[in-house]
């Protein structure tokens, strides 16, 4: 008679296919072998995160790299995406003893037409997807009287285009599987149109809008979308801003930022300023009347 009784015969877990995702134990990430029978589970790491499989886009440095390190320490397998292969390999090397795996994926997020295939490879390699973080970002130096469309479009491509290109397939996958968390790293810079860098701020405002809409779309499908608005974080991006002569104080470390991001995402927060004080700054900035704001140098 019927042998379809095993729930795993049509597994709810890993994507099966020709590019069958297997880990070093030879099982798919769901703990089933190719025939759908339960396989002995690999030794459990000391502390397990809620998620088991994650993608971090923009993982070669700064906040993204710190997120990868923290996730693999908790036993999460992470596909780490960025352009600089050497940095990614170094990251994987640093994390070699961790319970989770780092899988480097070299990719330029501005190559939108390649994203869909890259995304699919990543998910198949992981055997599923529980969390995606879009942390790739570009902030180019823009002089006070500079209106450089080339630079502006570059920022738009990485901060907005790449974000949409990566999070659309992720949103669709998570919708169909009715689970998952999407995190977008926006910025305090998206709160108001400041003089300093019109398009960088605009890209972050666009991200906020897009992420909010995704959150509302996916709510019925049990998928959570979390928008992170960091203030100052000690990363290459900040170093670059300092090099341009800006004085920046009170920045937090990328590691602290990463912890705060994971905490916020896991507790189901919608929009979070990191650290908290930026929530107040954000509130004040949003409420300064335009006629005053025009004259301010922030």
């Amino acid at each position, binding site marked *: *008679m*019927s*042998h*379809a*009784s*095993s*729930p795993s015969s*049509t*597994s*709810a*877990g*890993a*994507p*099966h*296919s*020709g590019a069958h995702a297997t*880990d*070093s134990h030879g099982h798919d990430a769901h703990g089933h072998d190719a025939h759908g029978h339960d396989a002995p589970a690999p030794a459990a790491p000391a502390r397990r995160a809620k998620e088991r499989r994650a993608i971090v886009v923009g993982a070669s440095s700064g906040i993204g790299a710190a997120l990868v390190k923290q996730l693999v320490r908790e036993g999460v397998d992470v*596909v780490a995406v960025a352009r600089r*292969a050497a940095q*990614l*390999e170094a990251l*994987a*090397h640093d*994390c*070699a003893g961790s319970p989770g*795996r*780092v*899988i*480097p*994926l*070299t*990719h330029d997020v501005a190559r939108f*037409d*390649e994203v*869909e*295939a*890259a*995304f*699919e*490879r*990543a*998910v*198949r*390699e992981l055997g*599923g997807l529980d969390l995606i973080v879009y942390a790739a970002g570009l902030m180019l130096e823009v002089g006070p009287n500079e209106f450089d469309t080339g630079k502006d479009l570059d920022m738009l491509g990485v901060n907005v285009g790449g974000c949409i290109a990566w999070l659309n*397939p992720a949103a*669709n*996958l998570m919708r*169909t*599987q*009715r*689970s998952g968390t999407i995190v977008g790293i926006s910025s305090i810079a998206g709160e108001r149109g400041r003089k300093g860098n019109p398009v960088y701020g605009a890209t972050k405002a666009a991200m906020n809008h897009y992420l909010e809409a995704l959150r509302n779309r996916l709510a*019925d499908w*049990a998928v959570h979308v979390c928008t992170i608005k960091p203030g100052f974080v000690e990363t290459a991006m900040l170093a670059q801003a300092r090099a341009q002569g800006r004085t920046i104080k009170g920045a937090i470390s990328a590691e602290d930022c990463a912890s705060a991001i994971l905490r916020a995402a896991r507790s189901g927060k919608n929009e979070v300023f990191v650290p908290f004080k930026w929530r107040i700054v954000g509130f004040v900035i949003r409420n300064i009347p335009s006629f005053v704001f025009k004259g301010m140098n922030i």
Partner: protein
Amino acid sequence: MAPALRSLSVAPNRRIPERLEYVEGWGMAVGAFASVLRPRSVEEVLECFSLAAQRGHPLVLRGGGNSYGDASMNSRGLVLDISRMNRVIAFDANSGVATLEPGVTIEKLWKTILPLGFWPRVVSGTMFPTVAGALAANIHGKNNYAVGTIGDACLEFDIALPSGEHKTCSRTQNPDLFHAAIGGFGLLGCFTRIVLQTKRVHSGDVRVSAASPRTLKEMMDYFEAHKHEADYLVGWIDCFSGGDSAGRGLIHRADYLEPGEDAHPEQTLRVAHQELPANIMGLFPKSQVWRILVLFNHDLGMRSINAAKYVAGRLESMAPPYRQSHAGFAFLLDYVPNWKWAYGRRRGEYGLIQYQPFVPHEHAHAVHSEILERCRRAGHVPYLGVFKRHRPDPFWLTHAVDGWSMAMDFKVSPSRRAELWKLCDELTELVISAGGRFYFAKDAVIDASDAARFLPRDRMAAFAALKHACDPQTLLEGDLYRRAFREWIDNNA
């Protein structure tokens, strides 16, 4: 280098839209990740076949994904979703003949033709299936005993075959393929154009009356007494009720209105007259109603709901006949969007299966009574039971018999899954021994040896031969094929 350090390389862009998704049966109890291809033309369908051959991955066809079980999913390959080929090619408002792309939904079809005074001859209890999915399953409606299946309403279709051919089939042209592909569950080829005969109607409403049988016997007697004049008959059964009132339920009968009976057909034929309201009591959004149903989704809650429905049905049966829109009568199940989520949403673990045995008339009462009794004894009582009368049709693998079916929704949960499958196995034995059949659109449990026992021998051999001719490399193969077809197809090779 350790495997952890292996980098991924990225394949170049794809021409036909393709996306990784979790693809599941409508009942959510089975599903798997797959790359979903969405071709937009016949050429692209054929290209998908070549792609599958190139990659060495089998492919399953998918319409709206409304089959309860694994008919349109594939845990070992690709999914070809035809929903983007969804144009109404032509509709002749004199003859009522509709020419459709395969991905046109029943919803789109009725919304196109009703304002012109037509209604599909055969519809399912939900309006979201595509015409291709409906034809591949050979769906039946609440009028099966009177008009047959959707195959009986099909005049012609075009089908793209994995062998690379593109054929037109009708009762006179390629009649074998016509009778095998209808009800063939997408295993021979992909419908690319479907021509359906629709029915002229003189009102957007039907006349509905209710009867409240106290036993299964009363229910069957009512159907038999009215089947010659009623246009639609459907029974609902309170599966919780045992003893003297086992099989008690509610019958709805609906009849088309004659010309002149509806004083304002131009009003009732409008789509707006048919629409189901978006809010309940003007306030509560329908999209959130399933959250309330969650509270009742256990044996006690469902026992109460079924009992309450029975009592309400007794009152309704005393009231005079009333008018209801076609859509309101036909698609009752669509009133509450995503009501299935009340069964739990954790993928692959919670959900429902439908189990719908078709039993010949002479054994129907005994077998269906026994099934209800065994479910109660096993503690797996269906939360919903729907009873219908059927008639045979000429399609090779059809589920329809001159008899009766009872569609039962069973809750699936991880802890009781194996038990439920075992119960179904026992029921299957009962049904097949009585000369009964199953319907793959609703099924998730039977296997190929069961299928080989109820399908006619000559039909199986002929179907297997066609499978080899149309699909020599077995590109069309999904979970349903592997579960309930492969063995007997290979045996007939």
